[in-house]
């Protein structure tokens, strides 16, 4: 073979090899099954189960939520002015979008994985819900309800990173997480104001504070628990709670600004 042909052949072969290597990297985003299979039934005796309920409040006047400049996407812009819902506070100081969960105290109990998926919707150029929980192994359906495209980019520490494009309205991507992680952020690199957080846990005892900052962790077995509350800007707070059989306790978290 002529030397120049040989050189061209070498360059082409090298390029193909590198392209193939590059394409194989995309497989990283595939989820794998959890190592320990979840049991089929709930290990908690319902006759002794109790509950922890409470409220999250905000003390002080929060800074105004930053306005969102949606001018980079005409579809989003025509939806009207919006602000980033960092501080969603009710008239009686209840703080929404705080993730409350049992951080410790469940020992080695294993819980079944809920068969129904959690849905994360991209709607109105924002994520709904903004803060939510899911169990390890439970399906997460990520859907695009907008007439524009989004990419959903998960930035985990303990799970596998993924970045999926959803170019059309109605597209859905289903995934699962293999390891507990509180909190795991999502972002849209197309619309930089879009952020969401998911708490991935091995048990079902979590909630996101809703209107007036209320939350409830029901069906807990008797025991002493560390309850943690997480807010995207204000950080974390924890407290210890001891539950007797069929006991319900009310607690409160107070974040300050």
């Amino acid at each position: 073979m002529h030397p120049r042909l040989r050189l061209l052949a070498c360059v082409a072969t090298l390029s193909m090899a590198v392209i193939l290597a590059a394409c194989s990297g995309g497989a990283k985003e595939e989820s794998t099954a959890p190592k320990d299979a979840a049991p089929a039934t709930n290990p908690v005796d319902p006759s002794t189960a109790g509950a922890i309920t409470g409220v999250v409040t905000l003390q002080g006047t929060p800074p105004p939520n930053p306005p969102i400049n949606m001018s980079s996407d005409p579809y989003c812009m025509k939806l009207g002015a919006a602000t980033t819902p960092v501080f969603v506070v009710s008239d009686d100081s209840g703080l929404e979008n705080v993730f409350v969960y049992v951080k410790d105290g469940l020992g080695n109990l294993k819980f079944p994985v809920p068969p129904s998926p959690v849905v994360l919707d991209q709607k109105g150029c924002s994520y709904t819900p903004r803060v939510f929980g899911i169990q390890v192994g439970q399906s997460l359906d990520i859907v695009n309800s907008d007439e524009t495209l989004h990419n959903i980019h998960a930035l985990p520490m303990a799970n596998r990173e993924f970045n999926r494009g959803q170019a059309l309205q109605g597209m859905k991507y289903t995934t699962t997480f293999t390891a507990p992680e509180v909190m795991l952020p999502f972002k849209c690199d197309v619309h930089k104001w879009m952020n969401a957080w998911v708490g991935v846990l091995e048990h079902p005892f979590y909630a996101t504070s809703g209107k007036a900052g209320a939350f409830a962790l029901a069906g807990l077995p008797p025991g002493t628990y560390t309850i943690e509350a997480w807010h995207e800007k204000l950080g974390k707070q924890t407290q210890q709670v001891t539950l007797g059989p069929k006991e319900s306790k009310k607690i409160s978290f107070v974040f300050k600004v």
Partner: protein
Amino acid sequence: MLHLFAMLVAATTGILIFAGGLVTSTESGLSVPDWPNTYGYFMFFFPLEKMVGGIRYEHTHRLIASTVGFLIVILAAWLWRAETRRWVRRLGYLALAAVITQGVLGGITVLWYLPDPISIAHASLAQLVFCLTMTIALVTSQGWKRAYATNGPAPDDLTLQRVAAVTTGLIYLQIVVGATMRHTGAGLAIPDFPLMFGQLIPPQWDPKIAIHFAHRLGAVIVSLAILATTGHVFYHHKSRSELRRPAMLLLALLLVQVTLGALTVLSKKEFIINSLHVVTGASVLVTSLVLTLRAHRARFAAGSKEQDPAYGRPMTVRRTGPFGPANSTAGDHA
């Protein structure tokens, strides 16, 4: 025509570097999650109305990159067919291999979620592609082929050759440090300018501060090197316009580049300023490279006497087949 085309390729490579700078400055690198497709579309069929948000920067970068790649394919083929100097033809092949590798690095960095080493390699190789296309544009010019003879014999000034080469090397190193700073998020690790945390030396250190400090220190070293090179040109070779002009341009670009660097910090990385800093850095590099190559022109002159004054071809060219002669001619070295 070949020279004009090579100039076009070099210019589009510079535009591509600016577009790449915009992608990093707007943090849009992952706004298109797939590669080589764009949201499942064949790249060139991606609907314009879907180019929103960060996609505008990332997809435009890909389109320009594809154009540059295509132009370099043509350039390499053109050199292969028409260029008689073997080393110039090889520059074309090297540019082609570099731009292919560059494209693959760009794809890998998207598919692997922008790992720092790959992104830094992508940014650093971009500068080498720019250097290669600019070198091809230079050595296919009439001035180069005539060894800038209108100004008398090209000077063979060893001191200039050395200081210019060192300067070009330092500029490239500084750009690699800059790329490291950008891709590790250290651009504002030192938030004030010209002082650093209000002092001449940072009072606190972490890896990001160290990278940022290295880039500022590098700016001082590069500035001194450029002053040494240009000062030597102005003092010893003032009559040589082929050296004086790039030297003047180099000084002007240095001034702009230092200003842009300061503004990048003071504006908290405003994306246009930040991207202009990237492309001006690349311009400083290739200007220094042109000066360096011209300073070395006399060393390329061995075969120049045999060249056609109009095109620089050797007077006797033997084409034995579709791939040209197997053996080189005297003109191969000029």
